[in-house]
């Protein structure tokens, strides 16, 4: 029997995204192994066990191995991995944090990433995000759990020039947010792109 095909919530948007001009680039980043980690106290043992220094500064993210570690709350992080399968990843992280009284949950499909790149994406985000995205305030390594339009998101700054962001959104809201972003980008696209 053929192996199971994977489908992304934003598959249907691929062509539309592809037609966007550079200043408002949008690409979907699906299928990223992601684990939600809860841990009361982060110390050397945690770092040793996880192989990552979980960021303790609110509203930040750090590179972690082949992925990222994103601060979600005083005792909560998102860890991503680009080499392990979701279940492998959860198993490894869970084994690491369990002895420390923590927990780990596979949330790989819970959210999907939307990569926003270009000179105007900050303007696009500003139409529905109340976070100050000025590069001096929200440079690379910054993150925020907030709302974009009417969708809850985790927003990551990937550059110091406010021209490269990753938006993590609940999968069931992905279609809404994609349409919302395309609508916001309309002003920066010579030809209307939200024709789907």
């Amino acid at each position: 029997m053929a192996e199971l095909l994977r489908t992304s919530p934003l598959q249907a948007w691929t062509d539309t995204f592809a037609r966007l001009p550079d200043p408002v680039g949008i690409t979907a980043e699906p299928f990223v192994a992601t684990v939600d980690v809860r841990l009361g106290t982060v110390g050397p043992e945690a770092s040793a066990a996880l192989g990552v220094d979980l960021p303790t500064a609110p509203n930040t993210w750090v590179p972690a191995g082949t992925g990222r570690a994103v601060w979600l709350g005083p005792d909560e992080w998102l860890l991503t991995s680009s080499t392990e399968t979701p279940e492998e990843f959860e198993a490894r992280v869970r084994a690491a944090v369990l002895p420390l009284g923590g927990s780990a949950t596979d949330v790989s499909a819970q959210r999907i990433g939307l990569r926003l790149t270009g000179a105007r994406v900050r303007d696009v985000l500003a139409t529905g995000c109340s976070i100050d995205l000025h590069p001096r305030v929200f440079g690379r390594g910054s993150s925020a759990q907030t709302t974009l339009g009417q969708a809850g998101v985790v927003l990551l700054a990937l550059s110091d020039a406010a021209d490269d962001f990753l938006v993590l959104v609940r999968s069931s809201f992905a279609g809404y947010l994609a349409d919302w972003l395309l609508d916001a980008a309309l002003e920066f696209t010579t030809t209307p792109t939200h024709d789907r």
Partner: protein
Amino acid sequence: MTSPFRTPEGGRIDRSATVEFTFDGQVLRGHPGDTLASALLANGRHQVATSVKFGRPRGIAAAWAEDPGGLVQIEEPFPEPMLLATTVELYDGLAASGLPGQGRLADVPDSARYDAVHSHVDVLVVGAGPAGLAAALTASRSGARVALVDEQSEAGGALLGTDDELDGAPAVDWVAAAVAELAATPDVLHLQRTTAFGLYDDGFVLALERRTDHLGAAAPKHVSRQRVWRIRARSVVVATGAHERPVVFADNDRPGTMLAGAARTFLHRYGVLPGREAVVFTTNDSAYDAALDLFRAGVRVQAVVDARPEGSPQRRAECEGAGIRVLSGAVVTGTQGVERVTHALVAPFLDGEVGAGSAIACDLLLVSGGWNPAVHLFSQARGRLRYDATLGAFLPGEELDGVAVAGSAAGVPDLAGCLADGQRVARAALGVPAVPSAADDRLPTAPEPVVPTAPLVLWRVPDPSGAEGSTSFVDLQRDATVADIARAVGAGLRSIEHVKRYTTIGTAHDQGKTSGVLTSGIVAELLGVPVQDTGTTTFRPPYTPVAFAALAGRDRGRLFDPERVTALHEWHVAAGAVFEDVGQWKRPRHYPRPGEDMEAAVLRECAAARTGVGILDGSTLGKIDVQGPDAAVLLDRLYTNLMSSLKVGSVRYGVMCGVDGMVIDDGTVLRLAEDRFLVLTTTGGAAKVLDWMEEWIQTEWPDLRVHCTSVTEQWCTFPVVGPRSRDVVGAVFPGVDVSNEAFPFMTWRDTTLDGVPVRLARISFSGELAYEVYVNPWYAVAVWQRLLDAGRPHGITPYGTETMHVLRAEKGYPIIGQDTDGTVTPHDLGMAWAVSKKKPDFVGKRSFARPENHNPLRKHLVGLLPVDRQTVLPEGSQIVEYRTDGRLPAPPVPMLGHVTSSYRSAELARPFALALVKGGRERIGETVHVPVDGTLVPVEVTGSVLVDPEGARRDG
């Protein structure tokens, strides 16, 4: 054709181009840079509208948003009600008409785009007049992030309406230089055509930018027409200037009557002469500038009428030098004319007494009663206002945290003062020394201000006509007069708020911009109390009217509210599903085949699930991963039944109550490990239950070692339901022994499909043999397809929520939120079995002991069977006692309860219903009546389980 009242030169209009527009059906011409008002005046047209109540002619009386007279209806390019001609920029193809009181909405939807943008700055300056520009320059030069917003089409504020000079050159040159400097400075946002209309807490300002209105038909469709700026500023500098205040006298609403400063603006900014023969009526020095400017521009100034006994010695000299007659100690008591002023009635004025008057011919009557600082935003920020008896105006009366007022908005009278004040306030906002050290922060030098002669505070001129002020208009937009105020006071009203409501003053389009302070003054006079005690009515947002659509922004149509969908949505659409809104989710309700209505489709889907096999996309069910050594303790405290006794590998149904003991949610719980549970909630309850758990853990039981994580979108869930479900699931997952012995009811098993983890659970929401298939949504479409393929020989049938509802209702399973309404306990649902007696406590338990919970007449969930075996009772129908005569008595008729769910059952071959009925369980077997469309339908009360009561089917 040149407009008759256009000056040969000057003004900031583009005379090289001509704009054609239509007003009241008449084709007229103007220039780019005109407003509708200036273009009408240039064409000699003063009357614009007729008044709301008396239908009196009304004209343009001011040059911007404070104009109470020039209300118009836009007809083309798109109908828009009630705008001020003074604020409508002229463009080709503009068609407008005078507005008689009421605006008219378009009868077609507005296709324009509207949006909003968030902005964050250190200093927001509102108003690009001298004070505002000085403030913005000062702030930007310090490197701060600055926003400067101004409601006009270009910066300059009052300077646009004067011929003032700075550094020995026209002040507008300095304005241009300032604008250029700001444009070249990083982190400066400068927006014209942008009105700050609301000032809220913590430096939050809402401003409306009119982005394309001035382009008319040329407006690009993909650019928002208007944009709401949501500006968050550490400090806000309010430099909104001042509105000139009229003096009230008889027939002061006659077109041709205009504020003096406005006439200057029309002359200097638009190159328009508002008239040929002018009378200038003033109580202060500022109007003399208008008189002299108009004189120099060729207007015959018949007289300057100064209410002050001595007038203004030095300004008088200037005028007389120019041959302008100045009448001191005189007032204008009224006007003559019909659609335009023909005469001003002038009379001596001494100690409040008006002497015998005479008529002076004029086609323009300029009035100045002083200036009201535009303190609206300051007042919106709940800043206290102080009455200044010398100026006859309300000024900011206190320092506000993060909000400062600068320039003439703070009562600063002259240009030099305004520039310095803007700089001072900006520096204070930035927390730097008030005196600029750096030379690069220098401000231009303004001419030494002449010390003005003190103004006279005069609200109204006594009405000599004997009409007692019945034509002395205070609020032109509401046709409210001095006489109306007198009646209000005479009726016993003392509060300015009462007077406002009695006379409707200040409630119209301009929200009292000119009438508000006048009313305070006149009421104070009539009551003989200080104006400070009378106070003003509250200034409320918005400062100027804002279109509904601008505030709606992009949250319209499909973006009005998010549509949540599952990984299978596209499949459902392709399969022709009819969708149902469940919260924000789009769920397939049924999958009609060609020619099928819903009833037919649902009967078919139900039959498949009961006799063959059906499949449902149950992925919207809330899912929460509960982990930790105390996970079971948490669940024991939140569910009414015992969860800690659940064995790993098993599943248990549970009910959750609020502290008031009412059911808030239900669902199944899978124990994945000693320290790990998968909790399923209702679709609508998902977020609520997770928040509920977090709230208890964080606020009450921080000692519990447990964590909850939402995994609603981490798992797709497909119930495969029906006698043939075992064959289908067994075929797709050969690695699992799906026999009842190996895989009993209410247990779960993990397996894989092509290496992809899959979880199967023996859970039934239909009473049939059923397996729920849990899989990562990445593979949902593929797994769903595998199940369909394997089910094809058995006629597997996708079904929607409607069939799900019928199947569960036949088994008496309640839907929380449909069969409950926040007043129902587990016992009411007949679920005492799900309420633990063992547990000392759980949330809601104590409430069960309240007297009302033992009322024998509580409503119980029961079944109903219409005796005629035909009628499908409408859901929501009420239930009454059986009436032997078959007729309803006169109201009020006592009600026994209501129908919560009602369907036609393929299985029972008859309609049935679930209902909440008072003492229902004691009524089983009785017949009661349900009124439907005026007739009483007899129904038998039954138990709630109508299909397979002994539960024989669930194991296949």
